[in-house]
């Protein structure tokens, strides 16, 4: 198998503007694909989830492969009866029409489609969406004969972005022509003044409002976000008052240049008042990007100026974000203005998001994500080990491996602080592989040479995300081969949520891992939604009883009944039970009486760095 081709990696078609050729080619592809599926020429489907997770469904096991493909197409698709009634509509068509597919199915096609094209051909038409707005589209049709009924299959490609581009070109052409006329009349300066600020040459309020409205119209269907940033200089009045208007004007010019230098070509900066600027960033991913942009603008403005203009400029920035074109230019500007005042009241020199809660979360996640990225790059992932003891023999049987990030200052970050971010960003996959390797390598070194029957186990936590990228069993097999650890020494712990949606593909991966000789178990049992059916179907060897139940042992009758029931249930299913969070001798004795097999917790040892483990091994507990 060839390595991923770098030339392919760097290609994303979506970065380039849509053209008629591209739209036609995409439609042709969709038609080819539908025909190939119908003719049984396809044996697997690759389904993406938000551009992140990709799963492969082979035809023999897919539940509804045809539907899955059509549902996930980037173009609208519909099936229409010979009487013109819509029998099926995919998700994308619902998005184009701004309503749920349930309301589309059953309706006559003429309610949504204006104009007609002969069956079997293709052409440009308009859709009328739920708001009564017209959407330009390219429609391809093909006729199927199903049991004597003539069904028409439609593929529908959105042309909004392309039309907007064409209009922009026309408008620019007209503007150019108009300007030439006025040049002849020596009035070009006046025209410029209508839309631009004379001092900085930036668009003025009227023009920026117009640009925001345009951006909102486009993002309504592209499902992207539009960010508006209100920038107000903290120190301007002081400079103007103490050093005169000329110095103030020169500062404004430098600020406008700096703002432009940070932005993408598609972004717009306008000056709407004395020291007030507005940045429009259309087609952005969301709040995280907007927060990041705000921070970058602050940084750029506060940078030491090396061209003689000495002073650093402090600014307050308010950010508002419209999702999928919601709101108007005026509401966005007002929200950004409000957020800017909060930034100012918090001392200035900072960016604030209009939605305070969202803004905080966005900033916090941004910071955590950077920490994780850097830690992976700089090999600062560490693994600590917490001992696991056999309750009957009171001896250490193994360890649970727990990931840590070593901060640059030497402190350690616990999993709770980075695992959620790792899960969301997909970084949990490289992180998980790293932890697995480190844990296996350490455990291999600790195996006793003299008494091979008394091997030490190492338990590693898995994230559900790790099942979404190829076959996890091959990762496990390869790691065992490379580290030399015996498969029986490796235990893998799954969370209840990881197996809640037990897809056949995940089940197959788990079975292959079991076939390697690796044992698997369920972590935090009792806190999630694992059903008995799942417990029976999964190739598990143990369950871990969550510490919240163990802590109540001896004091809370309810907890005691739960722990007892879980231990019995596990025994009946042929699974070992392991108690987590054991802190007192009373808890340990009670667990032993109830028939619990193994335990871990501070009573037996806290998670410790690997160099402290050898002293711990073989140490008999009282």
């Amino acid at each position, binding site marked *: 198998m060839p390595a991923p081709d770098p030339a*392919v990696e760097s290609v*994303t*078609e979506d970065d380039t503007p849509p053209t008629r050729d591209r739209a036609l080619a995409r439609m042709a*592809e969709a038609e080819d694909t539908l025909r*190939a599926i119908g003719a049984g020429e396809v*044996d*697997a489907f*690759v389904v993406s989830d938000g551009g992140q997770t990709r799963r492969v469904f082979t035809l023999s096991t897919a539940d509804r492969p045809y539907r899955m493909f059509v549902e996930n197409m980037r173009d609208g698709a519909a099936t229409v009866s010979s009487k013109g009634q819509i029998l099926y509509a995919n998700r994308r068509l619902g998005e184009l029409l701004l309503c749920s597919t349930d309301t589309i199915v059953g309706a006559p096609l003429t309610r949504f489609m204006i104009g007609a094209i002969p069956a079997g051909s293709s052409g440009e038409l308009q859709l009328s969406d739920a708001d009564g707005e017209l959407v330009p589209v390219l429609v391809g049709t093909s006729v199927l004969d199903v049991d004597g009924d003539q069904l028409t299959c439609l593929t529908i490609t959105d042309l909004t972005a392309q039309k907007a581009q064409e209009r922009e070109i026309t408008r620019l052409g007209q503007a150019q022509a108009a300007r030439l006329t006025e040049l002849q009349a020596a009035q070009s300066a006046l025209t410029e003044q209508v839309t631009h600020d004379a001092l900085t040459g930036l668009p003025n309020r009227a023009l920026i409002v117009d640009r925001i409205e345009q951006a909102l119209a486009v993002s309504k269907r592209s499902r992207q976000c539009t960010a508006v940033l209100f920038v107000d200089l903290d120190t301007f009045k002081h400079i103007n008052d103490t050093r005169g208007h000329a110095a103030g004007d020169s500062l404004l010019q430098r600020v406008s240049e700096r703002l432009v230098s940070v932005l993408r070509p598609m972004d717009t900066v306008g000056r709407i008042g004395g020291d007030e600027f507005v940045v429009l960033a259309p087609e952005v991913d969301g709040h995280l990007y907007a927060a990041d942009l705000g921070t970058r603008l602050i940084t750029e403005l506060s940078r030491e100026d090396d061209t003689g203009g000495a002073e650093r400029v402090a600014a307050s920035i308010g950010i508002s974000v419209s999702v999928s074109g919601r709101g108007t230019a005026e509401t966005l500007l007002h929200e950004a203005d409000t957020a800017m005042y909060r930034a100012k009241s918090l001392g200035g020199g900072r960016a604030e998001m209009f939605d305070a809660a969202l803004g905080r979360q966005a900033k916090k996640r941004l910071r955590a994500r950077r920490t994780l990225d850097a830690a992976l790059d700089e090999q600062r992932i560490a693994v600590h080990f917490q001992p696991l003891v056999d309750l009957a023999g009171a001896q250490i049987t193994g360890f649970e491996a727990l990931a840590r990030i070593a901060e640059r200052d030497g402190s350690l970050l616990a999993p709770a602080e980075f695992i959620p971010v790792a899960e969301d960003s997909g970084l949990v996959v490289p992180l998980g592989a790293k932890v697995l390797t480190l844990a296996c390598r350490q455990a291999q070194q600790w195996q006793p040479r003299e008494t091979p029957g008394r091997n030490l186990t190492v338990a590693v936590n898995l994230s559900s995300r790790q099942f979404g990228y190829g076959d996890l069993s091959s990762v496990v097999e390869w790691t065992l081969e490379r580290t030399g650890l015996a498969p029986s020494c490796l235990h893998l712990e799954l969370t209840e949520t990881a197996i809640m949606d037990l897809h056949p593909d995940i089940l197959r991966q788990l079975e292959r891992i079991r076939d390697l000789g690796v044992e698997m178990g369920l972590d935090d049992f009792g806190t999630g939604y694992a059903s008995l059916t799942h417990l029976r179907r999964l190739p598990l060897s143990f369950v871990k009883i969550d510490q919240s139940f163990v802590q109540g042992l001896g004091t809370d009758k309810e907890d005691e009944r739960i722990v007892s029931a879980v231990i019995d249930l596990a025994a009946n299913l042929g699974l070992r039970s392991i108690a987590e969070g054991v802190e007192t001798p009373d808890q340990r004795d009670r667990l032993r009486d109830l028939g619990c097999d193994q335990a871990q917790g501070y009573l037996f040892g806290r998670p410790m760095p690997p160099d402290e483990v050898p002293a711990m091994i073989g140490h008999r507990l009282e």
Partner: protein
Amino acid sequence: MGGDEPRPQLMLFVSGASDLSARAIASATELCDVRLSGRFRLAVVDVHGDPAATQSSGVHATPTLVRTAPLPLRRFVGDLSDTDAVLLRLGLTDAGS
């Protein structure tokens, strides 16, 4: 990267060792060797094994043959034995002559 034009390349995405995969590999190899006189490099990718390449080439179903260079990407899904249809969709109609 440099200023060099990347060598023309086709990538064939298949799903494991199925009958359709075997047929697709045979057809694509013949297409490259005979119809395209060996000017295109052919890479075969198993969608189970190489999610990154699969993702970046926008493949939704297998077998799919993708023209990855020169850009833009062009894809053909399904049976590759009708080489004229395949070449047409991949925008390589004048390549055989």
